[in-house]
């Protein structure tokens, strides 16, 4: 095989490479190509009309707004959780540390059903919020909470290792030189953790934009009000309007690629930061 750069005594390149690329091509690349072709094959004015339809625009606003808010909530509280787990020792810390990954393992249908029950007007938490005029379930706020849940581990798990690697002597030096704790936090700790926090933010945001399962339960799915973009794709498919579904799907796929690129750039920035600190 010409493209093999190095000769090796280890066998099995042909069969493993062949199977892996065949499986990847058939299962992932061919179907994704079908989507792009379907979108590209559309008449441009029609494509534009579908993706800028007022109902679609309302769904983008809701999807991005709620995802952005959820990711912002997560960088504040996720940071506090990561800080608590790294810096403090308290009973149950190992248990809390393990349960952070729960949203990765818990099916989204379960978290959606459960959050709806917790935040409904008669739910455990909802009953205290309803009298205050705060409606969570079947409202945009509920969507934000569901997206916060699924994004939370991304932020905690990217900030936590960065915080563990942060050299303590830098903080001690700042304190010795007379910096207040707040000054040390905002001028010394936070800049060093910025790449990790931003990576966590982007991962949580990217995951939230595509989420569907938990939202169908808590959103109420009212057009223009609590209808997210993935739901709109499903509605178009139910109407057998494959072209419109593909057009909106292409928009979501393009957003996924932009997010993927952003995450890769942020991670490269984080690695440079760390290697730069070590060299110094």
């Amino acid at each position, binding site marked *: 095989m010409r493209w093999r750069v190095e000769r090796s005594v280890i066998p099995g390149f042909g069969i493993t490479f062949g199977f892996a690329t065949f499986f990847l091509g058939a299962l992932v690349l061919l179907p994704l190509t079908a989507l792009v072709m379907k979108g590209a094959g559309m008449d441009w004015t029609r494509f534009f009309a579908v993706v800028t339809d007022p109902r679609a625009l309302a769904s983008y606003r809701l999807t991005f707004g709620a995802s952005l808010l959820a990711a912002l909530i997560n960088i504040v509280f996720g940071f506090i959780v990561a800080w608590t787990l790294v810096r403090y020792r308290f009973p149950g810390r190992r248990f809390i540390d393990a349960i952070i990954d729960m949203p990765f393992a818990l099916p989204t249908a379960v978290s959606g059903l459960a959050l709806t029950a917790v935040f409904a007007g008669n739910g455990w938490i909802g009953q205290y919020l309803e009298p205050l005029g705060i409606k969570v379930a079947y409202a945009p706020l509920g969507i934000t909470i569901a997206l916060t849940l699924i994004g939370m581990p991304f932020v905690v798990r990217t900030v936590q290792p960065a915080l563990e690697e942060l050299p303590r002597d830098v903080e001690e030096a700042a304190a010795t030189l007379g910096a207040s704790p707040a000054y040390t936090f905002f001028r010394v700790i936070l800049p060093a953790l910025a790449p990790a926090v931003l990576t966590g933010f982007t991962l949580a945001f990217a995951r939230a934009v595509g989420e569907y399962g938990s939202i169908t*339960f808590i959103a109420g799915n009212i057009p223009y009000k609590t209808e997210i973009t993935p739901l709109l794709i499903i509605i178009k498919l139910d109407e057998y309007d494959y072209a419109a579904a593909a057009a909106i799907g292409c928009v979501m796929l393009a957003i996924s690629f932009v997010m993927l690129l952003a995450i890769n750039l942020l991670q490269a920035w984080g690695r440079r930061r760390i290697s730069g600190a070590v060299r110094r």
Partner: protein
Amino acid sequence: MMRVLLIAVSLIFLGGLLFAPLGVVFVSAFGNGIETWLASFADSDTGAAIRLTLLTAAIVVPLNTVFGVCAAWCIAKFEFAGKSMLITLIDLPLAVSPVVSGLIYVLLFGAQGWFGGWLQDHDISIIFAVPGIVLATSFVTFPYVARELIPLMQQLGNDEEEAAITLGAGGWFTFFHVTLPRIRWGLLYGVILCNARAMGEFGAVSVVSGHIRGLTNTMPLHIEALYQDYSMAGAFAVASLLSLLAVITLIIKTLLEWRMGTRHR
């Protein structure tokens, strides 16, 4: 003071977001006694949903495991052009929205899809049938085993395999007796995460399933169907089963992380 405050904030945040939902599932499922919980599973559609979920996982998980081992073997053991491209493409399904993951198969195999006409002529149904559910689930769980094994096998290096081969061992023998014992915990880690996602996937499966009760509803889809019927006892009973799966997955995952001495994202 700061310490107590921050721990309290963390616990309240996680309490409302994680513990309350998990608690409500188990309280609602078992609140009316174990008999009521058991009675929910007497329903034939619920039984069919459980069987379909198990069947899907039984097909998808081994397939993606074989793929993961193959991909990790060729990436970790050999140098070839386009390797980093291949690694990026393997992770691609993680970036795609679950609904889009289902949509792409509808565009291929649906009535108006690329192969729709041919499939109809030959009386094969993929969309709104079990094969579509298997395909969509395979797509979303595609990277799980590979992305655990690739960095692990790259880090372990080739020396031991090269020694075995040089001493006359065959390829399969080397894999099962030299490589596998060293990657088994990482492999198991990828497999249980793959399984959890396969059994719990909602969005992608929802698009291709057609929601035919007793035939194409998996457990997560059946929860939605019961919820829409206001059959809360049934919905929470099925949800409790999937929560149990999540708890077991988390326990095994944590034990494996302690065993391997690493933490994964």
